[in-house]
Structure formats: structure tokens, C-alpha cells
């Protein structure tokens, strides 16, 4: 690790710390329905939307009605995205004629299972891409189906977090807010303004925005290169800000148009963490003790730093096998050293590992390097980040409500240890809360472990419908533990709604499309519904006054307890699986064997 490298990580984190309070305060005001400086411009628009869609923003909903609204918009979103994809051949803005008889030979067919997988993927804020966008999706599909979902699914996630925050902040009421108003305000006042600003920045840095078809270039070496074009910049900001991560191009944020410079790289990472971090401040402000918010923020930060430094250290250290071959792998003034396989030279090791950690801390899933090419320990970090349900700032909303569910478990055990029935920010944590938190954590581990198990052993006929390559393990690029990691990574990414791929796994077969769709669906909704149920249950409770007998949840001790809970539950659940993947691979690498 180099001084400049460490400095870059610290500077990035400093920006996040600096933005957390102002943006958190702004978000708090927006969701409380208070007037902000943006209301002068957007207020009339907000009222117009309410009038057109018949929303009464002050009509409060119980947690069941709130969930009902959420489910109804989800059903609509799913159908809309599915149909646009299936019908894209008949629709305009399709310069390459995908899904038509005139489609180019390299195009991927829009099969029902792929459309299903993609619809679920964008509905659940996962943006897992079983397809290569540049060879599959028309511009219309990208703009109206996928980009719109990037906004909606992000707003839904934030709305759930806001509802849960209200559950803690309110007392002795039955309602947790109005879903429609929350989603509208989120998109209008938070997502859109930030996206507009950052899009201009990306265009300035070199991103493109056009409706042209691909252009052909002749390189200096005389080779012919096809360069994709399209309406990219407009989709770029929300892909990051909404922690969606679905790339416009297959190369995602490694593509020069999609992430032109180190500067744009930093902004992309800032956008990924921005809302997740700010929500912690909003939480503290809502429960009238900002220290509570900062405590959650601190726990997330510690986990972030451990992850990023392990990953950075492992990659900078490189592969001892290559070093034994006589290849210099230490850092020099002109050479990055370490493991540069699968990394962009314009980002180098530190900006790649930082991006990999950030994108899996949050449920973004955009990538600027190939995680598949990381050293075993370097690859373990993103994998473990996802398996702990991405609570390190996390997906927009999802990170906070995920962390609060862990806080419920932590407080339940810790609270007992101080001799009281547990309470968190003034609310008693009882049967219902524990049950719901356990359901959420159980659901994701069920999907990850079960589907990985099935895909490690399932046998299909070669050339058959379900999995044309034959056995499900035949879809991996590598064999041995690394192949296992590829499968484990895919389902971890799906259940955690991350969407990044270890790559190396050909997932566009009906088997993987379907199981991953279920994986993503369960990982999203069996987390959201319990979180909302907790919100409803908490809102009904009385506020317990804080005394010296109360477990303090705004100090170092609680931070340690929370980190311990997240790591311990994650480690205990996934240690056996990880030991057959990255861990054994690491030991074997040390003894000179790679896969």
C-alpha cells in the first residue's frame, strides 16, 4: 500500500463525511414535508403530480397499506419493464434492430427468461445483467424501462428506510407515512437535482449522450474497432446515486465513456455512498439525537475501512506465484506493482479496489474492474460485503434499514446483558421486531446457500432448455474453488440486490435467469416487508425514557456491538461456503497453485 493510495481513500471518505450532514438534513426536511430551497422551483411540479395522480400526500398509511402501495407499484414496474423488453423489436429508438429479423449477428436474443430476470433485476434495485446491454437492449428499453426503474426502485428503497425511521421517531400512532408522497418527493427533490448536476459533470469529463448507432474506428495498429454510442450520460448518474449499478455498456464503469477519468471515478463512488450515508444522519435527526445516527455511521465506516484496506492490501501485494517467476510486483514510481489483472490502467489498484469495496458495501454493483481477476482475499472482500446484506452505507435505503435490522438483533442481545428488556432509540424491542429481523436475515442466507448448493451439483442435459451447457457448473470460466466462488458470488450478488458479477459465470440460461430472479426477489421483498412490519410495530409503541439503566446506543460500545453482530452473523453463516471458495484458494495460491 502506498501513501498516495491511502491518501486517496481518506480523501474520498472525507468527502462523504462532509456531505453526510447537509444532505441528511435536506433529506429530513424533504420527507417531513418541510419547505426547502428547492420548493420554489419544484413545489408546483410536486403539486401537479399529486393532482394528476390523485395522491393526497397528507393521507397517512398503516404499514400494511404502505406495503400494499409498494407492492402495487412493483407489480406495475415489473410488467412494464418485461413488456418493453419483449416488444422492443416493434418500438422505435432501436438503431441496431435488436429483437428483429434485421438484428446483427452478435445480438443476444431477448428470451422470456432473460426479460423476466431483467425485469425482476431492475425492479429490485439489483441491476444484475445476465445480458450484455450493448448487444441486447434498444435505446428505448434502456431509457424508458431500465433508467426509469433506476429512479423508481431507488426511491422505493429510500421510502422504506424513511418509513422505518418514522417507526422509531413516532410513538403511539398507527401510521408510517404516505408511500406515494415519499416516492414522489424522493425522486423530485433528491434524485433528480443531484442527477442533473452530476450528469453535467460526467459529460464535461467525457461521457456521451446521443442516439447514434455505433461508429467504426481504425486503430493505429490498423485494427477495426466498433465503438458503441447512445444516451449514456443521462443514465450514468442515477446508476450510481440510486445504487443500481446496471451499466449502459457491458464493461460498465470500466468503459471509457461510462467512467472517463479518475475524477469521474471519484464522483461515481461519492454518488454511491452519498444517500446511504446521509440517511444515517437523517435517522439521528428524526429520533432527535444525531449521535444515534453518527453511531450507525461509525459502525458502517469501520466496516468500510477494514474491507477497503484488506482488498487494497491483497491486490497491491499481488500474486506470489507471479513474483516467483521473477516478475517485479512491488510498487515503483512508474509501476503500480501488485495484481493489475482485470484493472483499468487509468484507475490503478487503489481506485479499483476502492471502487470494488464501495460498490459492494452499497448494493450498487457497478464495476470498474473485473472482480473475477482479484486475488482470493481481494475477491473475498466484495463477496463478504454482499453476504452481510450490504449494510455498509448500503443500497439507498436498503443499507439503513438493513443495518437497523442488525441493530435490532444487536440491541436485543446487548440489551439483555444490561438487565433490561431491550430497547433501541426509545422503543422496546420485542417478539415482533426480533421475528421480522430474523426472517429478513434468514431469507437472504436461504437463497444464497440453497441456490449455490443447487447450482454446484445440478445436472442438465447438454443442449437442453434449462441449461444448454449441461451441468450448471459448466457455466463457470474456471474450475476448482474459483469456479465455486463464481457461483457463490452470483447468488450473493442477487440476494443482496447488488448486481455486480464476479463475471466468469455465463448466467444467461433459463436455469440461472430463473433462480437468480427468485434470489433477487426474495432478497428484496423478504427484507422490505419485515422492515415495514417493524416500522408499523415500532410506531405503535410508547417512547421509553432514557435513563442511566438504558443501554447507550450512541457510543463506542454500541458501535462495537453492532459491528460484532454484523460480522459474526455473516461469518458464522458463510464460513463453510467461503472456506471452499476464496479461503482455500488463498491457501493454495500461497502454496503455488491457481485455478
Amino acid at each position: 500500500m502506498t501513501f498516495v493510495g491511502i491518501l486517496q481513500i481518506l480523501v474520498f471518505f472525507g468527502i462523504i463525511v462532509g456531505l453526510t450532514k447537509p444532505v441528511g438534513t435536506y433529506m429530513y426536511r424533504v420527507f417531513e414535508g418541510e419547505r426547502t430551497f428547492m420548493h420554489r422551483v419544484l413545489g408546483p411540479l410536486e403539486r401537479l403530480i399529486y393532482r394528476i395522480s390523485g395522491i393526497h400526500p397528507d393521507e397517512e398509511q398503516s404499514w400494511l397499506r404502505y406495503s400494499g402501495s409498494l407492492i402495487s407499484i412493483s407489480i406495475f414496474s415489473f410488467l412494464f419493464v418485461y413488456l418493453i423488453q419483449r416488444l422492443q423489436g416493434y418500438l422505435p429508438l432501436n438503431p441496431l434492430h435488436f429483437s428483429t429479423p434485421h438484428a446483427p449477428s452478435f445480438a443476444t436474443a431477448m428470451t422470456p427468461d432473460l426479460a423476466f430476470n431483467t425485469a425482476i433485476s431492475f425492479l429490485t434495485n439489483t441491476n444484475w445483467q445476465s445480458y450484455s446491454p450493448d448487444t441486447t437492449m434498444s435505446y428505448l428499453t434502456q431509457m424508458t424501462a431500465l433508467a426509469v426503474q433506476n429512479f423508481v426502485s431507488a426511491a422505493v428503497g429510500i421510502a422504506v428506510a424513511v418509513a422505518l425511521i418514522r417507526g422509531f421517531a413516532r410513538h403511539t400512532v398507527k401510521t408510517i407515512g404516505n408511500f406515494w408522497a415519499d416516492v414522489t418527493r424522493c425522486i423530485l427533490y433528491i434524485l433528480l437535482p443531484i442527477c442533473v448536476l452530476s450528469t453535467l459533470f460526467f459529460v464535461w469529463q467525457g461521457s456521451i449522450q446521443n442516439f447514434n448507432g455505433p461508429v467504426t474506428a481504425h486503430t493505429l495498429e490498423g485494427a477495426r474497432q466498433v465503438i458503441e454510442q447512445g444516451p449514456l450520460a443521462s443514465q450514468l448518474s442515477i446508476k450510481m446515486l440510486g445504487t443500481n449499478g446496471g451499466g449502459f455498456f457491458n464493461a460498465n464503469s470500466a468503459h471509457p465513456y461510462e467512467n472517463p477519468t479518475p475524477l469521474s471515478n471519484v464522483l461515481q463512488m461519492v454518488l454511491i455512498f452519498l444517500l446511504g450515508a446521509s440517511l444515517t444522519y437523517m435517522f439521528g435527526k428524526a429520533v432527535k439525537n444525531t449521535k444515534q445516527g453518527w453511531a450507525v455511521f461509525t459502525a458502517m465506516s469501520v466496516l468500510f475501512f477494514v474491507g477497503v484496506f484488506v482488498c487494497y492490501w491483497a491486490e497491491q501485494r499481488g500474486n506470489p506465484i507471479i513474483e516467483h517467476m521473477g516478475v517485479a510486483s512491488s510498487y515503483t514510481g512508474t509501476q503500480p506493482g501488485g495484481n493489475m489483472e482485470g484493472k483499468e490502467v487509468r484507475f490503478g489498484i487503489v481506485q479499483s479496489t476502492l471502487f470494488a469495496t464501495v460498490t459492494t458495501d452499497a448494493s450498487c454493483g457497478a464495476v470498474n474492474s473485473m472482480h473475477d481477476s482479484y486475488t482470493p482475499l481481494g475477491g473475498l472482500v466484495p463477496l463478504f460485503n454482499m453476504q452481510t446484506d450490504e449494510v455498509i452505507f448500503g443500497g439507498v435505503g436498503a443499507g439503513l434499514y438493513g443495518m437497523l435490522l442488525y441493530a435490532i438483533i444487536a440491541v436485543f442481545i446487548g440489551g439483555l446483558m444490561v438487565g433490561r428488556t431491550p430497547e433501541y432509540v426509545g422503543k422496546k424491542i420485542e417478539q415482533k421486531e426480533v421475528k421480522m429481523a430474523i426472517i429478513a436475515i434468514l431469507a437472504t442466507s436461504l437463497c444464497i446457500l440453497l441456490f449455490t448448493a443447487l447450482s454446484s451439483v445440478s445436472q442438465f442435459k447438454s443442449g437442453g432448455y434449462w441449461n444448454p451447457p449441461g451441468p450448471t457448473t459448466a457455466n463457470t470460466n474456471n474450475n476448482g474453488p474459483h469456479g465455486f466462488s463464481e457461483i457463490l458470488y452470483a447468488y450473493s450478488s442477487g440476494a443482496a440486490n447488488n448486481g455486480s458479477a464476479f463475471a466468469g459465470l455465463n448466467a444467461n440460461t433459463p436455469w440461472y435467469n430463473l433462480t437468480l430472479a427468485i434470489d433477487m426477489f426474495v432478497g428484496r421483498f423478504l427484507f422490505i416487508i419485515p422492515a415495514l412490519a417493524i416500522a408499523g410495530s415500532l410506531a405503535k409503541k410508547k417512547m421509553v425514557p432514557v435513563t442511566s439503566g438504558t443501554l447507550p446506543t450512541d457510543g463506542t460500545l454500541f458501535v462495537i456491538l453492532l459491528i460484532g453482530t454484523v460480522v459474526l452473523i455473516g461469518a458464522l453463516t458463510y464460513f463453510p461456503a467461503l472456506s471452499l471458495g476464496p479461503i482455500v484458494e488463498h491457501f493454495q495460491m500461497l502454496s503455488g497453485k491457481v485455478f
Partner: protein
Amino acid sequence: MINAPFNAPIRPSEHKTEIPEHESSALISKGVRARPLFDPEILKRATKESFLKLNPWHVVKNPVIFVVEVGAALTTAFVIKDAFTKGPDIFFDIQISLWLWFTVLFANFAEAMAEARGKAQADTLRKTKSDATAHKVLPDKRVEVVSASALRTGDVVFCEAGMLIPGDGEVIEGIATVDESVITGESAPVIREAGGDRSAVTGGTKVLSDRITIRITSNPGETFLDRMIALVEGAVRQKTPNEIALNILIAGLTLIFLLAVATLPPYAKYSISAVGGGSMPSVAVLISLLVCLIPTTIGGLLSAIGIAGMDRVMQHNVLAMSGKAVEAAGDINTLLLDKTGTITFGNRQAVEFIPVEGVSAAELADAAQLSSLADETPEGRSVVVLAKEKYNLRGREVSEHEADFIPFSAYTRMSGVDIDGRNLRKGATEAIAQFVAELGGGVPESLTRISDGISRNGGTPLAVADGKKILGIIHLKDIVKGGMKERLTSLRAMGIRSVMITGDNPLTAAAIAHEAGVDDFLAQATPKDKLEYIKKEQAEGRLVAMTGDGTNDAPALAQADVGVAMNTGTMAAKEAGNMVDLDSNPTKLIEIVAIGKQLLMTRGSLTTFSIANDIAKYFAIIPAMFAPIYPALNRLNIMGLHSPESAVLSAVIFNALIIIVLIPLALRGVNYKPVTAGRMLTRNLLIYGLGGIIAPFPGIWMIDRLLAVFHLA
């Protein structure tokens, strides 16, 4: 408020009396009913019970232990299969299966141990419930001897010295001393009399003197003794809300681990085909891993902790109607304490003689003593005693003199004596001033000053006059019990506010509240005020505990989250509260709070310990399980366990033995000190969290050494 009956009146010589040793030395003291933790009789009973509890219908109620039992049954089936097929692993499988059965037995034993103590107690109680006879008074006043079990609510019986009271009831006529040791364990007899707050009698207790007539208030099977037997026996035990929540948590964890282990064979199969060699982990090893991972420690001890908590309350001679009430005690934010008898000794006592100008203190003391000789109230006696102590004035035999005693009347508000021609009077300052004025005497101007000074400080001034001359004032004072301030301070550290309830005027109340160090007080409190206060506190989210004994306390007792009724109190009070203090000691509430907290802490600490243990077990079993496929994984064998079999066996044995090791802790409860939550958490996290991570490493390593020495694996 009423004190414990038959308490000798407090004498001034007890001014410096501290709270009795067993109350003040530790917040949780050994009660009168304490039995040694491992009484041989209890051990025997518990061992037998732990085998009976192997019944799957019983075990299924505890999901964690049920999983272990199913695992034990499965491995046993494999042992039988091995026996027929001469499998090579039979010796290993037998040991695994034995230790899994032990794990279930140990968990059963923990529960049986906790229950056995209550059951032994219930047996003792049942013996006293032998079929007594009752002398039933018929409407026509004839007396009929019937069996006690034939009595119904509303029947009237009489009891004489030597008779057992046949059922719960209310004294409607007479007064008697009653031996209630059956219930309270206290051998000193108590007084029961018709009317007032001492009228309730309990079936099974014995009349020692005199004769009382009782109206029966409960049907057979519903008596206090019946309820008590059911309670101590645990027959009516229901899981408390917190216990259910914890059960959900550990059942959830069990499911997660079940998943983690059940998905291992496919992973192993993939790995084998990827590597092209190695062997699948055996079923016995997989079951071992599962049993080691699921929280068997807390799963096995959870119900024992709950029962033992109830039992600890019982050992303090408090009958908790539900475990929920004990748990709620741990959460109490506000403690309502009656001033009289709890914070202060029962009665006001004379502490000082303050003469007016021109009178000596000894002169005042002499007159005060003379005027009080016939005054049998505690206040009166305290005047006599103070004069004796301070001025060495001996109580004189009044019969030697021509004395005419004037008793206290509410009209004159004074009492006194006419002796040897002197008219000695003592009473309220205004009353004495008026008495003197009527005789033509003057009131010294210092009198009001002294009197007001005493009132302001919470004392009661009692003026003394000799004829038309005012001598001075006796300062009567409520004496705050020694050690009370310290206890209230430790309560505050635990985050509990203490509120003093008193019938005194606000001025007096404030002074005593200040002296005792309570956080708040409720002066001139009526039962309605108490109820309102509790409701107000609860509306602000606080949990309230109180004690009470009178019928008029019943609504407040019912409203409070923890209502402790005194056993001396009325039936209405006992039924309204959720605990009955058999000692009728109002400060007991403080111990109950500590027990409640200890109960919750024990649960949390052992859960943490149980989960933290898993890390070491992974390091034992994972390399043993997968090294045949990936030899590189042997690097995870950081304990250097000598063979895969012994690694698995050591982990399973450790997992089983830790239950036995922790039984005393579960029954006694973790060490509890009244400190802030932050410090308590730090301490418990270090001991049970960090300790839980570290402890199994040397433990498993040692077992592995032993197994190697004895060639068991």
C-alpha cells in the same frame, strides 16, 4: 401504613439501627428458604427427571435441543447400521452418538435442576395441606364439624388455639395470633383481627391463641396455598414475552445453521469433482458440526434460567404470580415507596428537647417524661426513653403518686397528667398555647420560632406546658432507616427513580424526601393520587413498581407494572398485585428489581457466550471435514488438533460439557452490580463475548489431548 404485625414497636434505642444485615449487605441476599445449589436430594430427583424428559414430545418444545435429539437418534441409527455392516467408523460414530445424547441429557438436567428445587418446596407445602377439619358455623349458630375440602365461599367457621385454619378467609370476629410459618417461613406469630387491614387469613396456617370466626373467601383448589404450590412447582409456568423473543432468535439462528450445514454436501460434491479426489463428509460429522453451531448452550439453559429466576424470587420469600412480573421488575423506571415503614421506621420519635428561655432542658425533659408515662403510643414511649437516655431520668412508677392521666383527644389535641398538683400537658403548639392562655399564662415569643423551625425541617413539634408556664418543645421526627440513602443511590445508578408516598403535608414530606435522598415525593397522597401518579408515569413510557397492603391500594397495585402486595395485607390487595411478599417487607422491591435484572442479564450473557463459541468450533471442524478434499485447509487447524476424528469429537464434547459447567451460573444468575448500563455491558461483553470467543480454543485443545492420551480418537 401498616408494618409487619407483631413487630415490636420501635424503641428510640434503635435510632442507629441499620437495615438488617441480610437486606443491606448485598442487593441479592440469601433468603430464608435458600437451599444449597446442589442438594443431594435435588440432584437425585433432577437426574431421574432428565431421562424422563428425553421424551420427544417434551423436547420438541425446545427447538434447539430437539434438533440435537434428532441428530442423536440419526447417529444412533448409523451406529446400528455400522454394527451390521461392520463399518470402519463404528467406534467414532458410537462416541459421537453418545455425546449427542449427553448433550440432550445435560440440557434436560439443567431444566430439571431448576424445577426440582421448586418441586421439593411444593411437596413440603402439600404435606401441610393434609385434610384439615373445619368447625363450620351454621346459620342457626349450630357448629358442625366438616372436612376442609367441603368448605365453599361464604361459609363461616371458627378456629381456636391449636387448630389449622381450614381455608382462606377473612376474620369477621375476634383476634388471634397465627403461626404462618408454613407460607412465610417466618416462625414469629402474627396477629389477625376482624376489620381493618389485618383481617386476611390463609388456609393451612395455625391459630396459636384465642379464637376467631372466619368467613371463607375461596373454594377448594383455588386457595392461596393451592396457587402457591402451583407456582413454586412451575405447573402454571408460561414462557415470558422476552423468553419467547429470545427463543425466536435462537430458533432463527438454528435454521440458519441448519441451512449452512445442509448445503455442505453439495458444496463438497462440487469440490470433489473439481479436484478429482477426496471424500464426502460423513453424516455423523455433519450432524456434529450442526450441533456445535446451533446455540445449544443457551437453548439448553434458557428454561432453567427462567425457572431459577422465579425460584430466586421465591427464596426471598416473594411469590411472583408470573415470570412476566419478574422480568418487568428488571425494567422498572420508577419505584413508589411508602414513607412509613419503608423509608422511615414506622413512627415518629422524640429526638430533642428544646426549652424556651429561662427553662433548662432537664426541666423540660422531666415534665415531658412525666406527661408521657401513661402514653402508650410509640411517640409517647419515645419521649420517656429519650429523657432517660439524655438526662438519665428514670421512668417513675406512677402508682406512687396521686396521678390523674388526661388521654389524648382529637378535640383538645393534647394529653398529659395532673400529678402532685402540677398540670403537665403536651400537644400541638396551638393547643398548648390556648391551654396556657386560658389559665392566664403568656406564650414566650421563641415558642413559635422553635415550632416553625421544626416543622420546616420535616419534624413534628410537640409543646409542653406545666400549668400556665410553657416549658419548651419536644422535637418528634421521622427516622430514616440507615443505609436507605445508599440503596436509593444505587437504584439511581441503575436508572431507577424513587418516589416517596406519604400522607404528610408537602413541607414535611420534602424534608424527609431530602434526607432519604428520594428523587420525588407525593405528599398528602390518597389512593386516587397514587393511581393517577402511576398512570401519568406509564403514559410517559415508564414502568412503575409499588408495594401496598390495604384494600384501597388495590387499584394502584393492579395498575402498576409490578405490584407487590404484603402478605399481611387484605385479600383484595393480594389479588390486585402480581407478587406477594410473604415477609411483608416493603423494601423487598429493591431486591426484586435486582433479581429481574439478573434474570435478563443471565439470558443475554449466555446467548452471547453460546454464539461466540462457534468461531472456535469452526476452526476445529471445518479443516477436519474438508482437508480430505483440500489438504491446504489444514492451515485452518490452528489448534493443532491431532486427527480429524478427534477434532470433531473434541468440539462435540466441549459443546456438551459447557452446558454442565454453566448450570450453576444459570441457576444462580450472573454476577450483578448496580452500575450504569454502559459499564455493565462493557463488563459482560468482555466476559461472555470476548471470553466466549477465546475459551473454547484451550477447552477443545485440552479435550483433544485427553482423547489422544486415552486413544479414543
